[in-house]
């Protein structure tokens, strides 16, 4: 039970770590950090080097995939760069067999200790450093999880019944392959299991061919690992997992074919192709493992284009991913400031279009339209908002006419208020979610929700149609309503005295948030109207 519990705990830590990496990495994506990672993977050689080092240190291609997925989903790495990293991460894991297993336990312990010291000494004072250390904390949790799983796999392997089963299976090719597969699934590292197999082989429990078959099984086990972990992934994140699964499968098939041909042609039915590389049986196992990484890396690199197309077809970007990518901003357009500013305007409207969707899940009409979850919409909004902000900053760095500079500043002001509006809307919906079942059925809350949806939809429509009359109407719709709302709320509380205090407080907050929302809509409308007037 304890072994199962340890493995379960390890899986939990692994997923918590992955989530922390992904979430904090996105928030860390500022221009400076992007440039740093971009430098590390700017060329194929650097990408290969980054992948190789990550494979050597982390001992697991699966872990490299999950970290790379985080960079890829945060748009710090392209699919091609990620594939190069994964190829070389796999090659990097083979170094461990050559130099016998690196003890990363100590490395992780020191890593966690250093992060703890950082928190103890309160060195994470700035927002950026906090995000950085949360990201590193995620990395350490991810690998603590792997250590837990590996540590549980160790005792598993030492259990008498397990060793007996392993010995019994040593005569059967299929059982040996299955043992390699299952141990790799449990230990989360094909390299580690290969070292175990090498050890058993060195004490005479298995011959060289049997060891080779176990190593083949580790390849298949790695493919299963990655498929299990990526089962719930969608879109770009899943593409890399599928790639690793393909990598491992190609490795197993090509080596199995080589071994089979070698076995058939060899007069003494012993594998000869690795014996040409080394006379030492232990090194032969290591060479086999390395060739099992090199062959698929070579083959998949040659076929990179069709593989990329295949991956994008099997797991295309999700609508949420599309939502978090700027649709109109174009780097070349920065050379034409007026065009760039026009594109910013389009992007800002597109961003505003997301906002009414925040209210759909809390509206009585909630089943009429499928929308993403609130936190996903929020993340998508923040990503696009960040891209708009960075784009405007780049635009200001170009030499532009004074009048255009003013328009850029106006666009920045507009973005800032839209961001406040989004935050306000997020808080509004979060307040409703605190007592969802109660609040969504209250007429007072429904009134606020439907009114806010109307105001947002009407505003966005006016902006899209450049309808100045419509904007005048919006300014009248969003005139000060503080007193009115207070009256309506008081009247409602007097007629519904059975409402509990928590709900009353929530309704009070909703009123304030609604009022602020109207004020922010009024502000963006005024800016938009001013920009429209100045352009005419």
């Amino acid at each position, binding site marked *: 039970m304890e072994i199962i519990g340890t493995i379960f705990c390890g899986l939990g830590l692994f997923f918590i770590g992955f989530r922390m990496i992904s979430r904090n990495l996105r928030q860390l994506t500022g221009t400076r950090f992007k440039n740093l990672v971009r430098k590390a993977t700017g060329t194929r050689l650097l990408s290969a080097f980054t992948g190789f080092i990550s494979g050597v240190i982390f001992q697991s291609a699966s872990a490299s995939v999950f970290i790379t997925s985080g960079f890829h989903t945060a748009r710090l790495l392209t699919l091609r760069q990620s594939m190069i990293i994964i190829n070389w991460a796999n090659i990097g894991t083979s170094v461990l067999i050559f130099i016998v297993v690196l003890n990363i336990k100590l490395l992780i312990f020191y890593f966690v200790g250093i992060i703890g010291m950082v928190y103890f000494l309160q060195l994470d004072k700035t927002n950026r450093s906090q995000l950085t250390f949360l990201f590193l904390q995620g990395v350490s949790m991810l690998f603590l999880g792997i250590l837990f799983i590996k540590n549980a796999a160790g005792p598993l392997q030492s259990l008498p019944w397990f060793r007996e089963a392993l010995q019994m299976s040593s005569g059967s090719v299929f059982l040996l392959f299955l043992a390699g597969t299952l141990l790799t699934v449990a230990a989360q590292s094909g390299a580690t299991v290969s070292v175990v197999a090498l050890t058993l082989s060195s004490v005479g429990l298995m011959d060289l061919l049997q060891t080779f078959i176990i190593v083949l099984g580790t390849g298949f086990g790695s493919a299963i690992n990655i498929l299990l972990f990526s089962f719930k992934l969608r879109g770009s994140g899943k593409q890399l997992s599928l790639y690793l699964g393909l990598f491992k499968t190609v490795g197993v098939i090509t080596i199995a074919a080589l071994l089979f041909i070698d076995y058939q042609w060899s007069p003494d039915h012993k594998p000869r192709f690795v014996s040409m590389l080394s006379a030492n049986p232990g090194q032969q196992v290591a060479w086999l493992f390395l060739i099992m990484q090199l062959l698929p890396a070579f083959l998949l690199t040659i076929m990179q284009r069709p593989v990329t197309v295949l991956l994008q077809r099997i797991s295309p970007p999700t609508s949420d991913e599309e939502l978090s990518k700027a649709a109109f901003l174009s780097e070349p357009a920065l050379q034409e400031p007026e065009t760039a500013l026009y594109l910013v305007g389009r992007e800002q409207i597109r961003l505003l279009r997301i906002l009414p969707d925040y209210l759909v899940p809390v*509206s*009585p*009409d909630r089943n*009429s*339209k499928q929308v993403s979850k609130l936190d996903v919409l929020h993340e998508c909004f923040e990503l696009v908002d960040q891209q708009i902000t960075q784009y405007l900053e780049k635009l200001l760095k170009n030499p532009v006419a004074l009048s255009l500079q003013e328009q850029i500043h106006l666009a920045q002001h507009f973005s800032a208020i839209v961001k406040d509006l989004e935050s306000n809307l997020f808080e509004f919906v979060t307040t409703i979610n605190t007592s969802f079942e109660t609040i969504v059925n209250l*007429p007072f809350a429904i*009134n*606020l929700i*439907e*009114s806010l*949806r*109307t*105001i947002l*939809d*009407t505003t966005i429509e006016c902006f899209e149609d450049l309808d100045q*009359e*419509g904007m005048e*109407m919006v300014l*009248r*719709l*969003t*005139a000060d*309503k503080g007193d*009115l*709302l207070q009256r*309506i709320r008081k009247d409602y509380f007097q007629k519904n005295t059975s409402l509990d205090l928590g709900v009353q407080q929530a309704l009070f907050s909703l009123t304030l948030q*609604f009022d602020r929302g*109207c004020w922010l809509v009024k502000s963006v409308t005024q800016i938009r109207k001013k920009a429209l007037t100045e352009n005419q």
Partner: protein
Amino acid sequence: MSLTLKIIQSDETLLKIAFTGKLDAINLPNVEMKFHALINNQNSPVILDFSEVSFLASLGIRMLLTAYKDVARQGHSLKIENAPDEIKKVFLTAGLSEFLM
């Protein structure tokens, strides 16, 4: 409860329509086109009787706003009568009472 639309009066002086039911995303598609066609084919003031309306969603409000603008372009008014208290509060909160009531 489905949504129905009944013409109470339709002549040169007035178009009066009574709605019954819920003006929400599920029911509106059934009547929206007919409603807009009636508005656009009529060149007179419009009164909408809301005495039998039980719920008004944002989509319904937007339909009314579009109709208001269309009628205003013709130089006429669009008003809502006999709205239940809860519907009136929605118009008040959304700032629409000065336009529609």
